[in-house]
C-alpha cells in the first residue's frame, strides 16, 4: 500500500508547493546574480564600428575598457590611417559601450529549462501514469454528476466535524489535489469544450 501511494504522495505534495515555491525560487535566483556587482572581463566591452574609408576597408574593434575610455582613439588599435587623417577617420566611427551579465543569462536559462522539464515530467505523469494508478479507485469514488446545481449541493452538504476529517496529512494532500484537478477540468470544459470563455 505504501509503495503504491508513494509516487502519488510525492506528486501531490510537489504539486501543492510547486507553483508558489517555483515563483519564489525564480525571483531569488534572478535577483541575486543581478545584485552582485562583480563584473568579469567577459561582461563589458567597447565596440567601435568603422566604415570603409578611402582605401581602408570597414572593421569592427572590440576592447575591454571603461565607459569614459570608450572612444575611437582608445579602442581602434592599430590605427589604419596616418596621423593627419585620424580625426576624419574617427568622425566616421561609432563607438558604443555595452555591458551584460553572463551569470544572469546562465541562471535564467537554466532555471527556465528546469521549470519546463519539471512541467513536462509532471504532465507525462498526469497523462500516462496517473490513470493507471487510479484505476482501482474508480469504483470507490461516488459518481459525480457535473450538472448538479451548486445550491442543492451546498444545501445538502454538511461540513464534516473537525475530528472526523483530515486525520492524516496524506488525505488532506490528496483532497487538495483532487480539488485542483476538478478545477482544471472545469476550466478545460469552459474554455475548450463549451467555448463559454476565451472564444
Amino acid at each position: 500500500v505504501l509503495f503504491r501511494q508513494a509516487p502519488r504522495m510525492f506528486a501531490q505534495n510537489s504539486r501543492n508547493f510547486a507553483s508558489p515555491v517555483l515563483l519564489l525560487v525564480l525571483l531569488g535566483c534572478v535577483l541575486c546574480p543581478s545584485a552582485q556587482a562583480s563584473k568579469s572581463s567577459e561582461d563589458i566591452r567597447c565596440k567601435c564600428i568603422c566604415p570603409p574609408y578611402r582605401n581602408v576597408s570597414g572593421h569592427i574593434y572590440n576592447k575591454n575598457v571603461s565607459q569614459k575610455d570608450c572612444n575611437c582613439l582608445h579602442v581602434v588599435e592599430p590605427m589604419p590611417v596616418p596621423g593627419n587623417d585620424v580625426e576624419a577617420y574617427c568622425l566616421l566611427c561609432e563607438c558604443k559601450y555595452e555591458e551584460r551579465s553572463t551569470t544572469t543569462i546562465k541562471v535564467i536559462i537554466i532555471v527556465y529549462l528546469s521549470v519546463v522539464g519539471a512541467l513536462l515530467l509532471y504532465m507525462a505523469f498526469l497523462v500516462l501514469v496517473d490513470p493507471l494508478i487510479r484505476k482501482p479507485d474508480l469504483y470507490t469514488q461516488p459518481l459525480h454528476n457535473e450538472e448538479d446545481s451548486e445550491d442543492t449541493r451546498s444545501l445538502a452538504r454538511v461540513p464534516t466535524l473537525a475530528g472526523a476529517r483530515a486525520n492524516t496529512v496524506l488525505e488532506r494532500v490528496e483532497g487538495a489535489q483532487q480539488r485542483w484537478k476538478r478545477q482544471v477540468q472545469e476550466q478545460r470544459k469552459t474554455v475548450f469544450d463549451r467555448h463559454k470563455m476565451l472564444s
Partner: protein
Amino acid sequence: MVNAGDMNGSGNLMDFLDEPFPDVGTYEDFHTIDWLREKSRDTDRHRKITSKSKESIWEFIKSLLDAWSGWVVMLLIGLLAGTLAGVIDLAVDWMTDLKEGVCLSAFWYSHEQCCWTSNETTFDDRDKCPQWQKWSELLVNQSEGASAYILNYFLYIMWALCFAFLAVSLVRVFAPYACGSGIPEIKTILSGFIIRGYLGKWTLLIKTVTLVLVVSSGLSLGKEGPLVHVACCCGNFFSSLFSKYSKNEGKRREVLSAAAAAGVSVAFGAPIGGVLFSLEEVSYYFPLKTLWRSFFAALVAAFTLRSINPFGNSRLVLFYVEYHTPWYMAELFPFILLGVFGGLWGTLFIRCNIAWCRRRKTTRLGKYPVLEVIVITAITAIIAYPNPYTRRSTSELISELFNDCGALESSQLCDYINDPNMTRPVDDIPDRPAGPGVYSAMWQLALALVFKIVITIFTFGMKIPSGLFIPSMAVGAMAGRMVGIGVEQLAYHHHDWIIFRNWCRPGADCVTPGLYAMVGAAACLGGVTRMTVSLVVIMFELTGGLEYIVPLMAAAVTSKWVADAFGKEGIYEAHIHLNGYPFLDVKDEFTHRTLATDVMRPRRGEAPLSVLTQDSMTVEDVETLIKETDYNGFPVVVSKDSERLIGFAQRRELILAIKNARQRQDGVVSNSIVYFTEDPPELPPNSPHPLKLRRILNLSPFTVTDHTPMETVVDIFRKLGLRQCLVTRSGRLLGIITKKDVLRHMAQMANQDPESIMFN
C-alpha cells in the same frame, strides 16, 4: 463556523490544503460583485482600525502597517512583474535563436551573446563567428548550398512545431485559462465580474512559461497583452497575502489596476504610458489614489527590468530609438495617409478576426485546438523562413525598421549608393539614391506585409497566450517604412518640385524613413485597439523624444477617426461582445427613450415576481423557492397583499444562513417562521422557534420608479456598479431590473442578438 486550525493539532501550515469555507460575503464564480457593499465594508474596517489605534501603541503600529500595506503590495508587484518580464525577454532571445543554430562554447547564449567576445567578426559579416554554428554546419558540416538551406529550413520548422505543441499541451493540461490575450477578461474582471482561477498561481506559471515558447516559435503574436495578464496574476497573488485586499473584492481591483499598469510598463519600457493604458483601456473605476500607486508599481517594475538588463545596453525594449532628426510640415500628408491605412487595417482585422473566432466557437473547428495550433505554426514557419524579414523575430524586425540608416548599417534596407568621398559624421548622412538592395528589400517587405496581415487574423485567439501589439506595430512599421523610402527617393530625384523645394535641399538629410515606420506602427496599433492618449505616450516614451509627438498624434487621431467610421468597437470590446461577458462599457452611449417599465422583469404575461414576505413564510417555503428558481436574490415585502418593499436578500446568504441555523440553533425546523423584522411576530404557543434573518437583509436596495428613463437607469448602473435595481410605483414593488437585463436591452436597441449575453 468551525475552524479546523484550532481543533487539529497538526498545525496551520496544512490549513491551506483544506477547502476554503464559503464565507458570508464572498461571491460565487461568474457573478458580479456588489461595489457599494465592498466600499462600505472597507470603510467599516478602516473606522474600526482607526478607533482601536487610540487604545495602545501596538494598535497604533498595526494601523500604520495597515496604511502602508498598499505600498508594500505595489513594491512586491513591481519586483515580481519586472523579474518575470526579464526572464521572458532573455528566454525568448535564446529560444528564438535556437531555431537556427546553437552556441558551441556555452549552449545558453543566443547568437548575439555568443559572438560578443569574438574577434573574428568583420564589417561585412557582422553576425558570423566560429562559436555560433547553424544546424546544418553542426550536423552535416556544410554552411552554404542547397542541402544546407533545406536542412536549416526543415529544422526551423521542426523547432517551431515542437515549441508550439509543447505550449498548447501545457496550457491544456495545467491551466486552460492561460490562453488568449487576457485583456478582455481582465477588463471584465475589473468591472466587477468574478472569474475564479483566472488570476491564479498556476495560470501565472503556465502563462509565463508558454509565452516564451509561443513567441520563440515564430508565430505572429506578441507578448504585451499576456504580460498584462501575468502582472495582474502577480497582483492577485500579493493581494491575497494581506487581509485588507484579500477579503475585499473592491480594494483588490484597485491593486489589479495598478498591476496592469506595471505590466504595460515592462512590456514597453513606458511607465507613464502604462499608467495611462491602465486608466484608459483596462480599468473601470480608477480612483485618484490608484493613480499614484500605479505609477509607483510601474516605476519599480521598470527599474527591476533595467537592473536585469536583458538587452545588454540598459534599454528596456529592443526597439528603442534615439535619433532626433527633425521632421517637416509637408510630411504631415504622408503621416495622415499612414493614419488612414492604420484605421482601415484596424477595421479589417477586427471584422475578420471576430468572424474567424466566431467560427471557432460555433463550428467543428473549435474541437481541434491542438491541431489548429500545429497547422497555423507549420504554415507560418513554412512561409516565413524564405523571407529574411519574417524569418527573424518580430521585435527585431521592428527594431530594424525603426532605425535610421547610418553609414554603418550593412543590412539590405540600408543599401544606398554611397558617395565614396563623403566625410560626413554618422548622424548627418544626406539623402542618397537607393541601391539594388533597397529595391529587393522593398518587395520583400511588401510580401511580408501581406503575409503578416493575413496570418495574424488566424493567430490571435488560438488556445495559446497571444498578444497583438507587436504584430500590429510590425504591419504599421513595414507600411510606414515603405512609404518613407518612397518619399525619400521622391525627394531625392525630384528635389525641384514645389512641395520639396522649400524644405529639402540636395545634400541635406530631409526624410527619415525610420520615423515613418514609427508613425505607421502607432497608426496601426491605434486603429486596432482605439487607444488615444496612452498610445501616443507609449510611442514617445519608446522614442525618447518629444519631437515626434505631433506626427504620432496626427496619425493616431486619423486612424481612430477612420476606424470609428466603420465600427465603434476596438478589438478588446469586440471580443467581450463575442464571448458575451456582462461588461457595461462606459464608452457606450445610450440614447434611446425607453423607460424602466419596458425593461423590468416580470414583463406582461410572465409569472409574477418571486418575493419573500416579512414574517409569513416558513423555512420550508423559502427552501422551495430557492430550489425552484435560480434568481440571485429576492426582494422582501411586507406581505403579499401590500407589496411594500422592505429590503433585498441575496440567494447565497439565504442558503448559508438557513444551513447554519439548521445545524446550530435549537428548535429550527422546516415549519419555523422566517422573519426579517426586529422583533419576532406574534405566534401561537407550541409553534417552533422562529428564525431571524434580519442581519442578511440589505435594508437599502436601490429603487427607481417605473417612469424613470432607461438613460438614467443605465447611468446609475454604470456609476454605482449595481447588480440589480428594483422598480416601484407609489411605494409598491413592481419588478426588478438586473444588469443582464440592461445589457440585453442595450444589445436589442443596437440590433444585436440579446441572447448572446451569457453569464448571470
